[in-house]
């Protein structure tokens, strides 16, 4: 192991241990796990009832000698929709709080000069901190995943199979990348602000725009969302008809698409919903097809995260170790 790798691991472990000792973080984690458990529990109770109905139908059809039995319209993974939505909203806040704590902890303890007077580069500091935070995020995501899977299995009476487990793994992997991006945002905003709390406020402001405002604008601008059930469905138009109408609104649709594309949260939502069978149209297809369909969202998720990581490295490089104009 190289000296640099050794230092990065040391910094990552330090970040992880310090973060899990933070009371604020423990409270936020508790909230996320609780709301996830409640959401999946409620969905699972409803699901168990529907599953029992379907089972009764299968039994009746088998008894009456029917050759063709309709496939189950139910999707166990879709019960985790709430879990993914909470990660999208609360998970992002937790990640921002983690980033804020990374910077404010060093400022409060005045330990940055002690670290930077050692052979530690700003890149190693950024990478080590991010890896430690990703460790915390992975732990959090794993806890919510276990809670969700156990609820679906025990209450919904439908344990997920290996293929579903793989899809779920990819969905949660995307959640870690997504939250990692917000960690970088929180750390960058805090490091760039003289007063750490101001940085936190700025990061939360950006979170508000990216996670809540932009997707909402995009959804509201979607012509199909103008009436319940979908405008085009109400007009009796299929996909081709819809596409034909939208050719008359290309600029409008382009602006709407850009608005949605600008939101990191939207890309995570699309991918995680595809992996958890939330969208009915995705359910009949296998994993390679789904990955192909969501490659744009995967690309944007990676691009946003990579850009924010680069920003974190740059910010740590330019961050003054000693406040300028301080003690002489």
């Amino acid at each position, binding site marked *: 192991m190289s000296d640099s790798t050794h230092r990065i691991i040391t910094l990552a472990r330090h970040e992880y241990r310090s973060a899990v000792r933070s009371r604020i973080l423990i409270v936020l984690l508790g909230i996320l796990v609780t709301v996830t458990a409640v959401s999946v529990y409620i969905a699972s109770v409803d699901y168990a009832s529907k599953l029992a109905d379907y089972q009764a139908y299968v039994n009746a059809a088998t008894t009456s000698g029917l050759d063709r039995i309709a496939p189950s319209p139910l999707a166990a993974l879709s019960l985790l929709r709430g879990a993914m939505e909470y990660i999208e909203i609360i998970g992002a806040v937790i990640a921002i709080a983690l980033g804020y704590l990374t910077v404010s902890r060093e400022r409060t303890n005045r330990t940055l000069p002690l*670290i930077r*007077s*050692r052979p530690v580069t700003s890149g190693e500091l950024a990478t080590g901190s991010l890896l430690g935070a990703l460790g915390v995020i992975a732990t959090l995501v794993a806890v919510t995943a276990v809670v969700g899977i156990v609820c679906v299995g025990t209450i919904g009476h439908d344990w997920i199979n290996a293929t579903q487990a793989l899809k779920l793994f990819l969905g949660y992997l995307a959640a870690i990348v997504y939250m990692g991006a917000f960690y970088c945002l929180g750390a960058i905003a805090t490091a760039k602000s003289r007063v750490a709390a101001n940085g936190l406020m700025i990061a939360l402001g950006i979170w508000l725009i990216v996670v809540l405002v932009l997707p909402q604008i995009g959804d509201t601008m979607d012509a199909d969302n103008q009436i319940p059930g979908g405008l085009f469905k109400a007009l009796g138009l299929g996909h081709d008809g819809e596409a034909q109408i939208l050719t008359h609104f290309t600029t409008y649709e382009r602006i709407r698409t850009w608005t949605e594309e600008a939101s990191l949260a939207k890309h995570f939502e699309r991918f995680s919903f595809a992996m958890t069978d939330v969208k009915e149209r995705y359910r009949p297809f296998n994993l390679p097809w789904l990955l192909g369909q969501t490659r744009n969202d995967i690309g944007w998720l990676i691009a946003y995260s990579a850009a924010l990581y680069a920003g974190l490295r740059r910010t740590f490089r330019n961050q003054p170790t000693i406040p300028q104009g301080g003690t*002489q």
Partner: protein
Amino acid sequence: MNSPVIELRGLSHRYDTDPVLRDIHLTIEAGEIFGFLGHNGAGKTTAINILTTLIEPTSGTAKVCGYDVVTERRDVTRCIGYLPAEVRMYGHMTAAENLEFFAKLSGVTDPRKAVAETLDYLECAELANKRVGSFSTGMRQRIGIAQAIVHRPKVLFLDEPTSGLDPLGVRQLRDTILRLNGDLGMTVFMNTHLLSEVSKVCTTIGVLNHGELIYKDSIEETTRRFPDEASLEDIYVRMETAS
């Protein structure tokens, strides 16, 4: 003759338009205990910050252990230890955990052993498993020195190491500095106000006045040069008023 461990050539620094260090030329040889004196705001801490690679000079060059503090930053940080003016460290961690963390960052191969040896050397092994957040100023200062020497650096930078210490703490610190210099051969660069300690500890002094180095010589030569003055404090006051 010993080789120079610290070399400043035309070193200057300014914060915005405010000059803090002006054209400093200074050489400190291996094994010296150098006391950097000067009034508040003279530029002493800025000099240490540059020498410990925490800030870059506006102009001029500075070398520590033969390495340039700007272009060979990593090599410099491998051979230095640094104690800032106010030691805090991670309050939620024990002294041993803090020291182990910094030892690992310095590339110490057996950090646990190095921490135990350092705490034994500084006669404060009883602090190992206590949280730093509960420490008094004196205890924090001892752990601060421990973090600065845990990797056995060649040069030790101390910024106002006696500030906040009681007389007993000051004496302990003085003994520690002399032992580090005598036993481990560390060169010590120390910013201080406490002139009584300087005369007991330092081999060489430098006086900084409004960013300019106005004097540098050994303690022996200094007392020889100013025979009329009773103490180093009198000599220092005379230098300051003359400049």
